[in-house]
């Protein structure tokens, strides 16, 4: 029994939990972070599953991390080094390919090989998406207002939202309204004609979501991924030295330097609630810790349906959490390789493209069919993949001469018919490898070791309900003041002194750090 009392306890050492803890500590609070696994980072980690090879077993890229977080927590000083991913390579089966280079003109040249018209439209598309992303970005840093409330805080926030929207150019306002409600596919059809270009652009609309590129609502997800900024560069994905785990270590280091205490191997079993007030947490081993502020970094379902006794919550709220959609289609595959994959369509002299993102997304129809296969509880016969060879960017990720290939894969349903098991995992892993081998025939000969994280594994390993990497679908009815529940979107909960700081809250998933930072602001409003 530990009687030591903290100001705040954060349940879960994911990146948002760490960010939250750091901000609270920065404001002078004494903070304890309790992480159930042996290492911090939650799904933002790097692990050595196979000797010498560092696997990005969950999240793999960093784009959306708020620059405020990087600066305010001085993450660079704590070892964060983000290497921009410079290119995207879309191999095609007809021997052709599409590439996106860091140099705008080079990209235009690539696109014009497929469509001159698209190469022209590309400039305007990039400018427009940049403007829209810039316009909605301030909304990410807001504590969502309760539109039914008339408190000064809520009214002020609503005025801010209104100000942001009415400050838009008229045509941008209309475009934003349409983009929010339409499908990524329809939106891209308006801009482009080239099949592979639309395919690769559409991927931003489906990453982490269980919708197809033709599902209305994916337009918003497309925009969500454009809000990313690394040092002010838009739609730039980055790779952290040491993998995404490097990011978590940097935040953890920043947090520790601010006085945060982090305990790993400390799974929380329950939040202790007395008379409607959270007072502490009990670990699975029976240890108890007490604090004035308890924050959960876990997803909403895990938090309120597992960690809190339901007798402490109103029925309506429990119902809101139960209905929160969290089915997930995302998997991670890691391959330890004896060499580099040889893509048939990669021209000689352009091997640099392997240093970037490699996307199996030849067309919108391809992606949509992948979704069709999975949406009734199955998996894609030809999955979408976003692959990366981290060892080319950071040689420390694999032994000399060897490589690691890390792939984000969709779709494989978390609600797989008959449930997931080891056989089915192996079967789907083969589907992924067979599909990729169509583009890089030497692949199967160079695989030393293969590893898959299905939604089932992501749930078992990280406690992510249904393995959802965004802690719940980014569908319109689950955004902003509706995330995760209409009355409780401001990081507060029906239990006094109990808060949420994970991706189930605004602005949702991806490595943004925004929920953690916003939650800290809400907490400090209540308890300065």
């Amino acid at each position: 029994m530990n009687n030591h009392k903290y100001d705040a306890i954060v349940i879960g050492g994911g990146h948002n939990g760490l960010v939250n803890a750091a901000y609270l500590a920065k404001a002078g609070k004494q903070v304890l972070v309790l992480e159930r696994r042996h290492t911090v980072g939650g799904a933002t980690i790097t692990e050595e599953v196979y000797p010498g090879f560092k696997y990005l077993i969950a999240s793999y890229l960093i784009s959306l991390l708020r620059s405020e977080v990087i600066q305010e927590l001085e993450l660079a000083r704590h070892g964060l080094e983000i290497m921009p991913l410079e290119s995207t390579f879309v191999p095609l089966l007809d021997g052709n390919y599409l590439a996106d280079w860091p140099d705008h003109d080079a990209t235009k040249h690539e696109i014009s090989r497929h469509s001159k018209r698209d190469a022209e439209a590309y400039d305007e598309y990039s400018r427009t998406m940049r403007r829209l992303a810039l316009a909605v970005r301030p909304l990410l840093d807001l504590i969502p207002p309760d539109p039914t409330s008339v408190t000064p805080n809520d009214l002020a926030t609503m005025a801010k939202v209104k100000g942001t929207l009415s400050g838009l150019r008229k045509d941008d306002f209309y475009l934003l309204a349409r983009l929010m409600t339409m499908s990524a596919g329809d939106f891209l059809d308006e801009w482009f004609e080239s099949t592979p270009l639309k395919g690769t652009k559409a991927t931003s609309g489906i990453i982490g979501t269980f919708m197809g590129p033709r599902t209305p609502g994916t337009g918003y997800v497309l925009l969500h991924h454009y809000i990313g900024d690394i040092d002010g560069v838009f739609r730039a994905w980055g790779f952290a030295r040491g993998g995404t785990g490097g990011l978590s270590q940097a935040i953890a280091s920043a947090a520790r330097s601010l006085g945060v205490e982090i305990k790993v191997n400390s799974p929380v079993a329950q939040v202790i609630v007395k008379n409607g007030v959270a007072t502490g947490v009990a670990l699975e081993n029976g240890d108890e810790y007490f604090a004035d502020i308890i924050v959960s970094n876990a997803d909403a379902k895990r938090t309120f349906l597992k960690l809190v006794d339901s007798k402490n919550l109103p029925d309506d709220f429990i119902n809101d959490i139960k209905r929160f959609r969290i089915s997930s289609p995302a998997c991670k595959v890691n391959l330890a390789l004896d060499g580099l994959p040889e893509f048939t369509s990669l021209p000689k002299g352009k091997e640099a493209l392997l240093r970037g993102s490699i996307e199996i997304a030849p067309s919108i129809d391809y992606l949509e069919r992948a979704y069709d296969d999975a949406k009734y509880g199955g998996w894609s016969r030809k999955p979408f993949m976003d692959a990366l060879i981290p060892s080319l960017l950071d040689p420390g990720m694999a032994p000399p001469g060897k490589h690691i290939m890390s792939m984000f894969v969709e779709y494989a349903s978390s609600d797989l018919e008959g449930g997931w098991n080891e056989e089915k995992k192996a079967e789907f892993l083969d589907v992924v490898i067979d599909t990729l081998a169509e583009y890089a025939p030497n692949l199967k000969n160079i695989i030393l070791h293969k590893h898959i994280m299905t939604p089932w594994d992501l749930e078992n390993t990280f406690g992510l309900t249904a393995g959802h990497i965004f802690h719940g679908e980014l569908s319109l009815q689950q955004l902003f003041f509706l995330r995760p529940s209409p009355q409780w979107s401001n990081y507060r909960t029906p239990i006094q002194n109990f808060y949420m700081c994970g991706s189930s809250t605004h602005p949702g998933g991806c490595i943004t750090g925004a929920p953690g930072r916003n939650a800290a602001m809400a907490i400090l409003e209540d308890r300065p």
Partner: protein
Amino acid sequence: MTTIYDAIIIGSSPNALTLAAYLSKAKERVLVIEPSKYLGGIASTTSFAEGFQADLGLMSGQLNSKIINELSLSDYGLEVIERNSITSLLANQKSFTLSSDPKEAVNVIQSFAPRDAERYQKFLELLNLAKELLESAYLITPLQAHNPSVVEREQLATLLGQLHAYGRREMPEVIRLLVMSSRDLLDEWFENTELKGLLASLSVRALTQGTFASGTTFNLLHHLAIGDGYFRTTAKGGIGAICQALAKAAKSFGAEILTDTKVSSIDINDSTATGVKLENGEIIKATKVISDYDARYSFTKLVSPIDLEPEFNREVKHIRYKGSVARVNLALSDLPSFTGLNQEALKGTLVISPSVAYIEKAFDRAKYGQMSSQPFIEACIPSLSDPTLAPSGKHVMSIWLQYVPYKGNISQEQVENLAITKLSEFAPNLKSLVLQSQVLTPQDFEAEFNLSEGHLYGGEMMLSQAFFLRPLAGFAQYQTPIEKLYLCGAATHPGGGISGLAGRNLANKLSFN
């Protein structure tokens, strides 16, 4: 002597005729020109076999009650007929029938899904709140959402006031309804697959989207708000009788109506509409011209794109139509016998939508231009409650079938065979009763009625094409880039159906001006 009309309306949908009636009632000189032979266009009821009458396109709906009252349409022969039940046709010739009386419906649901029965009435109450909000929004010209005027801000405040009055719990619930998919909605409320399937059917009516798509709940609410919900309503004599009554009213106020008169273009001088040119070369002048047609037809065929800005033309090109509704009318020698269904149930609407996934799967094929062998069907036998539609002892069956994608080049025969085959699973003698048939695919609707991509609602009823975005952002208040040219059809707010509200809203706007 040349007549100069105050208004020429091209097209004769309920919206067009409503507008004609209101304008002529306000002493304007109005000419309505319907290019097809049928007054009402796709909202007409025609004879397709000796002695048999059937609705041509839309097969249900009603005018907004304000229009019926303000124009005293019952004096002009309008008689509303309500179909008070929906029957879900399920595998193995099973079925269940829900009455429009919620208490009776609850009793039925109780027998197969007791837990859902408890929630059914609450569900309807929530839908009703959202429906009432839409009804208010549908009675006014869409508000300009970006920098609204003072008047618009007041109107917006009224709508928000209505929303706020729903209370802290219901207000966000109603907002959620507007943006969510019908799958999500029904999963939140119910457990029983078949009940969810039937309730989802309305969410995809006239839409080329599946139940998994965001915004399908909005399509459901739209149909409730225009009085064309689960329990379909029609008029004595069919949908066409609604147009006939409107036409009589309009004529009594002095409007002139021409049918079978093709308009080749709208005359434009100095960016101002001055009249129309008929296909025979005749020019008819007017101080304003109103197109009942959808935006794409209006701005590519009636108006030359040369008279418009390239940016506008580009946006017109992007409007999502994708018609996928086919209509089949059957002249039957006798009443088909649906296993387990009594005559009362046959007076209602029969629906093949056994599950939410069934609809989504039918849509999956349509995405790639194919027609699923397991279609979504709504069917009714209007002659049961309106014997004027068929010779004595004989019957008419109207079938609404989705998805028949416009781009799929699917033939009338294929559609007819599929409709009959599918319905024969429930009424084995159906095929042997068919005397004659009429089939209209999206391609037919385009060819015969100039509906872009055969879309019956002048563009999909998706959120991205609703309210201030319908038919186009910046041109959602019935106005167009051409002075004195307006749109009044289903392409404009509040969208598809028989409600006549677009016509009424525009009439209000024009008389206010």
